[in-house]
């Protein structure tokens, strides 16, 4: 048994000794499970203090760890009896829990990431049907509090914009009906776009408050793509869980399925096969390469530079075809499964993959260089859609968008999954404009292509020794009454899945946080003070997922 396996069977969680808010929380590593009763349930004021100290604005100027908010969600009823009462009716996500004295009660659970130390902090509190909003102190919570409000009717008092989020309740307001912000004035006009956009793209509604050409505020109202994903996942893992998560955000299949597989492996106290883990890693980087390549082309297209658009449109397909060489699907459907990967690579396939990666990368470099060498493109990208570092940090942006604003966050470095060699070099500080986001993506293309080549060499060196990439042979026993968190750095950024099992080892609650959930507000901020004609350019530089947000 390896050291890692020992630590996994011990639980891989710990409560630190010593004083201070950081030591109040349950500390958990990425991809490990802990019993539910290890989560400290604090009084609300202590919980608010804990959150504020670790993740609030002040935490960056004081001693001690600085954390990001990964997930924050409500559960009906107290934490422990809740998991048991849910066994009677799995999947009934909308019911309200009423305590003995007739008042509704809920548990709020927060998952924070300390990137420097590579640990996750978890803590919970119990509230009635209203509590003082935490968003004014921690803006990154704004959507999470709206989500809890929409799901259970819990009112965060003093929330600055408590509006519907996904219009997910069948009896609630119709989609798109809410109080939009409105700037008043003689010269001010409003532009409404969507839900159906003028292209082959997902649906959402945007409202611009404009003074002439200048956008004073952009409000984004989503929910059109709400398919009821999390409710369908409750009661699992069942035979539809993996296919469902493959479609959580269709262009981000590998990241979401990897997070799910990690949760199952954590609850089953098993490690994935080392070779399976390498195949997952390869697939994740191919997904990143495909999307970054496509988006660089689309950015060029949005400023009318058609050479790069045409080449990158083709090259994106070449990356997708590389994934299809491994598993038959251009989007990695069916490739991952709990325990490892469903498809193996033989030497012949590894050699063809190496050639394909090298050839496609060479063409991408040529196509992108044209764009960088073109002064008209550079002048259109520079200084447009700036998200300053302070804004990116307080909104909790993730992925390339955060790195382009100068945040040094990458889960592959800070919270690596077991047995992986990938550690991207630190990113250069950037200014947060469209050019920064484009450069950050190009830099990731270079790193990922080099990593894929090294990884493929490793498959050859193994000489077929680490052959087991097979899934679990029989349904594994999943640890009951436990919680586990899995973080995977997808191409858009942090994919976070939180699973809570009931006594029988079934998911009582399954929480999916797509990177788009964190980043949509970043797009709105990027548009402040910009010309409305630059919206497509700014939008494409983020290229966020609507269904990843709406689930």
């Amino acid at each position, binding site marked *: 048994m390896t050291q890692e396996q020992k630590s996994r069977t011990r639980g891989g969680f710990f409560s630190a000794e010593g004083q201070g808010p950081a030591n109040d929380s349950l500390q958990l590593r990425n991809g490990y499970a802990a019993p539910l009763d290890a989560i400290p349930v604090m009084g609300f004021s202590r919980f608010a203090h804990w959150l504020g100290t670790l993740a609030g604005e002040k935490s960056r100027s004081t001693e001690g760890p600085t954390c990001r908010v990964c997930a924050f969600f409500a559960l009906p009823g107290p934490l422990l009896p809740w998991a048991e009462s849910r066994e009677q009716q799995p999947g009934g996500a909308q019911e309200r829990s009423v305590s003995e004295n007739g008042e509704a009660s809920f548990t709020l659970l927060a998952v924070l990431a300390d990137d420097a130390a590579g640990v996750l902090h978890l803590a919970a509190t119990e509230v009635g049907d209203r509590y003082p909003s935490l968003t004014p102190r921690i803006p990154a919570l704004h959507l999470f509090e709206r989500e809890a409000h929409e799901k259970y009717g819990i009112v965060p008092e003093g929330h600055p914009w408590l509006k519907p989020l996904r219009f997910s309740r069948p009896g609630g307001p119709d989609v798109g009906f809410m109080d939009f912000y409105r700037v008043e004035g003689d010269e001010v006009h409003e532009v409404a776009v969507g839900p159906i956009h003028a292209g082959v793209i997902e*649906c959402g509604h945007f409202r611009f408050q404009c003074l002439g050409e200048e956008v004073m505020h952009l409000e984004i109202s989503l929910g059109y793509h709400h*398919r009821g994903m999390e*409710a369908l996942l409750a009661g699992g893992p069942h035979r539809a869980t993996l296919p469902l998560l493959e479609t959580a955000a269709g262009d981000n299949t590998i990241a979401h399925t990897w997070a799910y597989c990690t949760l199952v492996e954590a609850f089953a106290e098993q490690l994935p096969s080392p070779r399976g883990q390498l195949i997952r890693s390869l697939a994740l980087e191919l997904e990143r390469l495909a999307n970054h390549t496509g988006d660089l082309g689309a950015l060029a297209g949005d400023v009318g530079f058609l050479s790069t658009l045409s080449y990158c449109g083709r090259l994106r397909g070449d990356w997708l075809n590389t994934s299809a060489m491994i598993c038959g699907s251009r989007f990695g*459907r069916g490739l991952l499964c709990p325990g490892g990967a469903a498809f193996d690579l033989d030497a012949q396939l590894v050699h063809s993959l190496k050639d394909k990666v090298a050839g496609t990368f060479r063409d991408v470099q040529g196509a992108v260089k044209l764009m960088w060498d073109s002064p008209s493109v550079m002048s259109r990208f520079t200084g447009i859609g700036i998200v300053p570092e302070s804004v990116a940090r307080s909104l909790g942006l993730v992925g390339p968008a955060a790195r382009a604003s100068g945040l040094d966050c990458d889960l592959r470095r800070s919270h690596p999954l077991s047995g992986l060699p990938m550690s991207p070099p630190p990113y250069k500080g950037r200014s947060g404009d469209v050019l920064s986001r484009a450069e950050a993506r190009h830099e990731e293309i270079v790193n990922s292509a080099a990593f894929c080549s090294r990884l493929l060499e490793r498959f050859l060196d193994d000489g077929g020794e680490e052959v087991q990439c097979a899934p679990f042979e029989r349904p594994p026993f999943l640890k009951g009454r436990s919680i586990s968190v899995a973080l995977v750095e997808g191409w858009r950024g942090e994919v976070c899945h939180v699973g809570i099992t009931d006594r029988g080892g079934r998911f009582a609650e399954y929480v999916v946080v797509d990177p788009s959930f964190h980043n949509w507000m970043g797009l709105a901020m990027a548009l402040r003070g910009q010309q409305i004609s630059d919206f497509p350019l700014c939008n494409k530089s983020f290229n966020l997922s609507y269904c990843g947000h709406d689930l």
Partner: protein
Amino acid sequence: MLDILVERLRQKKRTVPFPGALPALPLRFRGRPFIDASSCIRAAGGDCAACAKACPTEAVHMEDRGPALDMGACTFCGACAAACPAASLVFTTDWRLASTERAALFIRPLPAEAHVVHDPMGRDKAMAGAAVVQSFPPRPERTFVLPELPLAPTREAAGAFARSCRLRQVTAAGCGACEADLNVLGTVVFDIARFGLDFVASPRHADAMVLTGPVPRNMREATLKCLAAMPEPKLIMAVGACAISGGLFRSLPDEGQEEGDSAFPGRPQRQNPQRAEGALPHMGVGLFIPGCPPHPYTSLDGFLRFIGRTTPSSARLSP
């Protein structure tokens, strides 16, 4: 400028010769399923429902003469093939999945003698209009001759739209994969504009709606408004399992399949309050293109035949 020309030469011409030649598909591609009547336990009257129990979308149901697999709800995950104890259910590499008839998407056992050619070189024996394809994983001794799915273009499609058909793609809560593989048809690789096909921004300019996604509650009104804004005559094409049936998100009958013996047995929640059932019945879908997502060649083949053009039959597939 010179750099651009040099790069243009280096990137080469990349438009595929389809439909003049067969498409290049990955070896591990999972296309049209085939159920061998001679070895299927259920077809022989035995008690087996392994494929149905393994299916995540409950696309397989049992009939008197064996299983029926609904490609309109199938995600092509291969779980049924893996669960089949007799290995009689396989996924072939046949990419031609589109049909104008919803009922034709149900795959039922086919007699092996009539449809399986054991000698891959005996392709001459293939029936006219049939598809000869390899199975996944490729086994040279099993080459299938599958009858074509019915695809009869409507009179409007063959007449009015044969040379110019403008498509308005509507994403009714699709996950982005169907959309990406439709978008790719507009790139230099497939270049659908050369067939008179093109994606347009306004429904007023559109001849056909290309619908993706399960059309949940929150997308119904927008989808219907877009359809109403299109001029007559109009066509509707449902692309992907979600748009055809709701796929993974549809509500399932309470008396559905029991727990199977797959890696993770158990039943998903039966009712989805978001009512994601795919294209609404009264919309009148004219063309169904199955897949999750359909391969770009599958969609292109469907579009082209629907407007009355011929595409290469898989019967010409070389080993």
